């Protein structure tokens, strides 16, 4: 079962989390790939509950 996951990566449409440089999100979007940008460097991440609450508002 576990081994199937890697294989699925090659067979499925990509859905990507991008942590860091936005240039890579833009490249993915230009290729019509589903992508969510994550920025862990901003202050709210210091408090996980606050970060989650902020993300629910977005």
């Amino acid at each position, binding site marked *: 079962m576990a081994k*199937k996951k890697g294989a699925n990566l090659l067979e499925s449409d990509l859905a990507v989390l991008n942590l*860091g*440089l*936005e240039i*890579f999100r833009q490249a993915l979007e230009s290729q019509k790939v589903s992508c969510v940008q*994550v920025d*862990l460097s901003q202050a709210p*991440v210091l408090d996980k509950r606050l970060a989650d609450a902020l*993300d629910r508002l977005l």
Partner: protein
Amino acid sequence: MQVVNLVQRNLFRDSIQLMRLTEDVKKLEGVDDAVVSMGTDTNRRLLQDLGLLGGEGRAAADTDLMIAVRVRDGFDGAVVMKNVEKLVMAPPVSSGGRRAVVLHSIGSALDRLHGANLAIVSVPGRQAFDPSMELLRNGVNVHLFSDHVPVEQELKLKRYASSKGLLVMGPGAGTSIINGVGLGFANSVRKGDVGIVASAGTGIQEVSTMLDRIGLGVSAALGVGGTDVSEQVGGLMMKDCLDLLERDERTRMLMIIAKTPKEKVIRNVMDHVRSHTSKPIVACFLGLDPPSTKEDRVAYAMTLHSAVRKAAIFSGGGAEPRFEKNISTSFEELVARSKEIASKLGPSRKYLRGLYSGGTLAHETLLIFRELIGEAYSNTPLSGAYALADPNTSKENCVVDLGDESFTSGRAHPMIDPTLRKLRISQESRDPDVAAILLDVVLGYGSSPEPGGSLGGAIADSTHKGLAVLAHVCGTETDPQSFREQSRELTESGTLLYSSNALLSAGAALVVGGEEASERLKNRWEYLLG
């Protein structure tokens, strides 16, 4: 004109944000020239070269943001700098066509993007372990672009991923292609049946674009990061990726590329593929000689050019003639072209200067130079005796990897930002001993939108001074920048183009190496380019 430096202590912006801030500040009224950068040695040197370094900038630390501006005559410096500061100090925003939603935790991002199966991680390397492990625990494969991840952490991530049937591509993985989607610095190449596993980012770019030009395509290209083939990591992910491609029905041929691998690790990887795979294999271990015994389904290549030729032979169906027509050239043609270039150079011009953005391509050039004209100096040399004392100052025959850490600390990679390379081209062109400058112009997602045009001015200045500029464009017609368009711009600026980096390197070596180098190439043609 007045030069003003402002320093904001302990303020970080990433390299892409800094490059874009620089462009925006240059557009402000009253600004003649400007650079916004982190206060690293490389960046202070850049400001010095541009005549933009002032007292405050000299005192900036790596963790400080430097704003250096030359104010046009007739403008009030204080007013101009107030506008500059306002622009630079505004919160960073997305520079895409529309404002992106930015989430602040992996948990909420996974809630938002159902079925997430991959993450690209490009945070600073020292901060990459925790989020990468969290992603793996949630069943998400990781493409780890970040450098400087401690090898112990790399091993933990890869062992965990391997136990769960997941991939960790990287750290330091510049390029992958999955399901036709380019990740990191990757090119737009056709889909096909060649599966690539590489510990060499621009190695993937070079072979995938050449395969594209001969009508072959890629089922997947998986970058595992340079340290995967270190003795500590032992090729762990390289073997997992090869297993994955063996199971992949679309993949009919395997290609393995490694830059400076450890011989013991490669022996282990090859033992693994012999016992765990059944498909034809092209193996290119740059810097390692192939084994003396022949193997039925394994072809060894000494260069990326040669690897693609061997893939064309394995593939059949007209790929080999297309390789000969679209990429290759004959020994005689290459010699004749080099003689013509040499005939136009002054007698004092005797050295080559490679100014590379791709580390694997720089390495390939060093290997070819060693075969034909002797070892060249470099910031990433083949042996310690040829290490440049100062990477900013070339010596004799020299190949500089401008994508190396010594140049990219606190600034964007040269594939994204051509500023450092333009300055270095100008610097080399002032040296009367230089015969030719070699450039790799790497296209694709993530790279500079107009590399040919942005380097054109510096190239034209150099050719007017009497030296040759030789280049290879690594890209495809469907890349965002267009292979044809960039080739046209480079040619118009006086650049002489070659269809592979190996041909560029061999051709350049013949320009300065004369008959002796020609004789060596004749004897090594099959080994290097066959």
